[in-house]
Structures are given as structure tokens and as C-alpha cells.
């Protein structure tokens, strides 16, 4: 195990974050505040409570998930796409580091950043609504697992992408709709029965539902299902990464 290599990649990636610290923190805090103003204050004033929780508080887990998913995917995909784009990937390929060490370095850094942003949003949310977290330990667990699994997904995306358009395409066309339709801002029980069934095919539903359970102790789907779904997604991503490693897909000709 080349621990030095993991450390080098991790620190290198984190220093990129530190360099752009302002925009790394300001933009998610700002956009979260906007969501609170629009959904919490404007719409929330007409929706009193969702299953016994004030609407403002109800959307907090969904808001955190929305940003964390987007950040984890975009950070990890950019982290590995950029060296490919500028050509410095030669160094990674010629280093005495296995593909797994490279993945741990990049995915670890992207997940760390996403996690930090998630916690910052949580702190910001505290200014707008009263939050009491029923299962803080599980909350953190869900958050960390989500950060890692979606950073893994982002890494795969970054390897697959051959231009900047493709890099943007998946977060824009897949992640954002899935999160918006995944019950981030509403309870699935508010939907007509037919749409409830369709929604159950959206993996983000399980994430948001499980995460919300850790806050309020109530969920759209059972917590076991939520954990299973994230676990399955992580395993799927790991399998794809193993395949990329074996074949050198879009990395080694």
C-alpha cells in the first residue's frame, strides 16, 4: 500500500479546495439560504406541517442531500477529469500506486469537501429553523456514506467524460432531476398513488428518506431499505471502478 501516494493526492486535492475556499463555502451557503427563503418562507407559510414537522425543518435533510450529492459528484469528477484534460494524468499512470490508491485519494478528498459543505449547510439551516436531530449518529453515518458513494460515482463519471459538456451532462440531466423528484421538498405520501410507485424506482428517494428519518424519526420508506439502497449503489460503483482498473478504460490505451 502506497500510503504516501494517497496522502499526496488527498492533500493536493484539498489544497485546490483551500485555494478557492471562498467560493467553496459561500456558494452552497448562499444557495441554501435562497432555498429556505423560497421553499421555507414563501411556500412553507402555506404548508403548515408535513407529518408533524414544520415545513421549514422538513426540507432541511433534502436540501443537504441535494447539495451534498451535487458537490460529491462534481468534485470527484472534476478531480480526475482535469488531469486527463491537461495531460498530467501521465503521472498517475506511471506512479508506483495502484488504481485503488488513486481512487481513495481522489474520492476521499471529494467526499471530505462534500461532507464539510453538508455540515456547513446544516449549521446554516439552524439559523432559519429549529432543528433537533433524533439520531445524530445515524445522521452522520448517512451523510458520510452518501458523500463517499456519490464521490465514487463522480470519479467514474470523470473517467468516462471526454469533454466538459459530458462532465456537466450527468449532474445536470440525472442528479438534479432525481434529487428534485426524490422527495427532497415533499413527502412521497403527498403524491397520487401512481406517482408514488414510479418514485420508488428513484434511488435518491431512499437516500433522502433515510436521512430524514435520522432527523425526525419518520420516513417514506423503511430505514433498512434506505441503507440497502446506498449499500447497493456503493457496491455497484466499486464494481465499475474495479472494471475500469482491469481494462484501463479511457485511461491506458
Amino acid at each position: 500500500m502506497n500510503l504516501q501516494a494517497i496522502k499526496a493526492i488527498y492533500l493536493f486535492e484539498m489544497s485546490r479546495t483551500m485555494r478557492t475556499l471562498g467560493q467553496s463555502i459561500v456558494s452552497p451557503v448562499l444557495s441554501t439560504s435562497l432555498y429556505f427563503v423560497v421553499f421555507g418562507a414563501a411556500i412553507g407559510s402555506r404548508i403548515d406541517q408535513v407529518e408533524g414537522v414544520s415545513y421549514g425543518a422538513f426540507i432541511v435533510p433534502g436540501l443537504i442531500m441535494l447539495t451534498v450529492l451535487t458537490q460529491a459528484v462534481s468534485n470527484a469528477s472534476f478531480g480526475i477529469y482535469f488531469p486527463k484534460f491537461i495531460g498530467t494524468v501521465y503521472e498517475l499512470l506511471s506512479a508506483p500506486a495502484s488504481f485503488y490508491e488513486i481512487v481513495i485519494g481522489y474520492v476521499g478528498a471529494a467526499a471530505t469537501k462534500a461532507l464539510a459543505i453538508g455540515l456547513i449547510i446544516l449549521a446554516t439551516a439552524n439559523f432559519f429553523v429549529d432543528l433537533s436531530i433524533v439520531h445524530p449518529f445515524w445522521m452522520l453515518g448517512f451523510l458520510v456514506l452518501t458523500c463517499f458513494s456519490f464521490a465514487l460515482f463522480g470519479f467514474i463519471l470523470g473517467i468516462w467524460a471526454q469533454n466538459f459538456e459530458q462532465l456537466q451532462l450527468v449532474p445536470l440531466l440525472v442528479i438534479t432531476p432525481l434529487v428534485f423528484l426524490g422527495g427532497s421538498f415533499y413527502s412521497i405520501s403527498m403524491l397520487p398513488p401512481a406517482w408514488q410507485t414510479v418514485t420508488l424506482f428513484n434511488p435518491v428517494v431512499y437516500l433522502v428518506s433515510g436521512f430524514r428519518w435520522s432527523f425526525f424519526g419518520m420516513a417514506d420508506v423503511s430505514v433498512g431499505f434506505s441503507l440497502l439502497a446506498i449499500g447497493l449503489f456503493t457496491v455497484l460503483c466499486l464494481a465499475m471502478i474495479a472494471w475500469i482498473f482491469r481494462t484501463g478504460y479511457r485511461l491506458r490505451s
Partner: protein
Amino acid sequence: MSAIVSVKGLGKTYEGGFEALRAVSLDIEEGEILALLGPNGAGKTTLISIICGITNPSGGSVTVGGFDTIRDFRGARALIGLVPQEVSLEPFESVINTVRFTRGLFGKKRDDAYLERILRQLSLWDKRADRIMTLSGGMKRRVLIAKALSHQPRVLFLDEPTAGVDVELRKDMWEIVRGLRADGVTIILTTHYIEEAEAIADRVGVINNGELLLVEEKNALMARMGKKELRIDLARPLDALPKPLEAYDLRLTDEGGLIYTYDTSAEKTGITDLLADLRHAGLHMVDLDTRQSSLEDIFVDLVREDGP
């Protein structure tokens, strides 16, 4: 001396069927400087890329320091430093950070004193905190070299290190190469500047169309392949070759003098006979001059014979 890099039957066929390397075998001795010459697209970079682990071979094997580059890739790659042909650097990063990054990537603990020594040697120390995007092209190349040396490699690959580089950097670079060689580092370089190979290399390999045409000690190669030319200036310029001299390998110069090409390793150079025949033909010489053909002439001849 023993082979530190051993290439056996290496082949590479790219998707789409282009055969970049055909069964190349090559032993590189520890501590030598080997220059690989060859026209563009000959397979030099492919060969280096496979040894360094950037490209997968289609066939054959490579060991570096006894480690197979695929099975024991960690052992092999830890020994190798690579200066790539393209200047690929993280534009927003500082010089010191990117060099430190490479050292870590290659599994070495942070050693700021060593990095300082390298950066000073490459005249980069004053620029260590500068972002790479603010550096000139020559400085960026120095950064690439610093990165390649950051983990104290035993084998250094320089892929076209002097392409588009000014005279000063070239001089510095060869200074460094000589210094590394004195430390026992093995150096493999590809270059278009054949006079550089001639000046610095111990051995020369010529690649064309994915095949290694030859690898030979530079001096032996030049002695074997080298031809000499004897230039003869005459008191009265000639318009055409006189009949008695047609048997010789002679050609007329623009000034009406003669150039005689001969092989120093042949049993007879024919010079004595030629001079005697010149006198019989009544031609008066005013000057003589001989010239050894350069590595470049040899290279051009070799590649031309091999055909496209």
C-alpha cells in the same frame, strides 16, 4: 555492468490496427546514457510509455531493476523518472507543491532539503511559490524535470527534452544529465537533435517504423557506419570528370573541385591510387580537406534504407 532495463519482444498494436512497435528487444545497462533516434511516429514515445506504465503492451515484457513492469509494477515504477514530451502541468498550482506532489505519489516521504537542492540546480528556487501558469515555456520544462527527479529515480527517461528549448536551458540540462550520470543514474533520451546525441550518449539506438534497427556504442557505430570525404581543390576547375578517373567514387563540386568518398575501415581506401591518377591526368591540387560524416548522416542513411 548489468542491464537495469530489459525489454523483450515488446509489441504494441493500437486499436484500429496501427502497429507502433514490432518485437523490440533491448537491454539498457546501468549507468549509461542511451539516445533513441528515429523520425516522428517511429515508436520512441510508445516504447517509453510502455516501460513507464502509461500504455499497455500488446506483447512481450519489460523489467526495470529486475521488477516486471506489470507484475511488480510498484518496484519497477519507483525506480523510474519520466520527463514527457508534452508540457503537462497543473496551471494553478505552485512549483513547490506540484514537485512535492510527485514525490509523494512515488511513495517517498517529504524531504524539503532534497527538493530545494533540485530546484536550485534547475534555477527554480526563486520561483518555487509562483503559479505554474505564470512561468515561461522554458521554466515549465524545468519544472517537469524537477518533478521527474523529485523521487530520486535510478532510471530517467527524457522524451524530446530539448524540443523548443533555448540554448541556456539546453546547456543546463546537459549539465544536469552529466551530473546524474556521475551519480550512476541511467538515462534514456529521445531527441531530434542528433548532434546532441552525438555529444552526450554512450550508445545510440535507431528506431524506425516500430522496429529497432540497431543499438550500438556510439563510437563504434560512427567508425563502422561513418564514411569520410576527401575534398580536393584544383588549380584549374573542371567541367566534367576526366575519363581516367571515372572508376573512382568521385563527384564534382560547384567550384569545379572533386569530392572522394571512402571507407576508413575498408582494406584499401584508394586514396594513394587516386592521387597518383590525378597526377597522371595532369590535374594540379591546391588544397586537400577530409571530413568525417556525422551521426546525422548515418541516421539519415539508415532510415532511408529502411524505407517508409
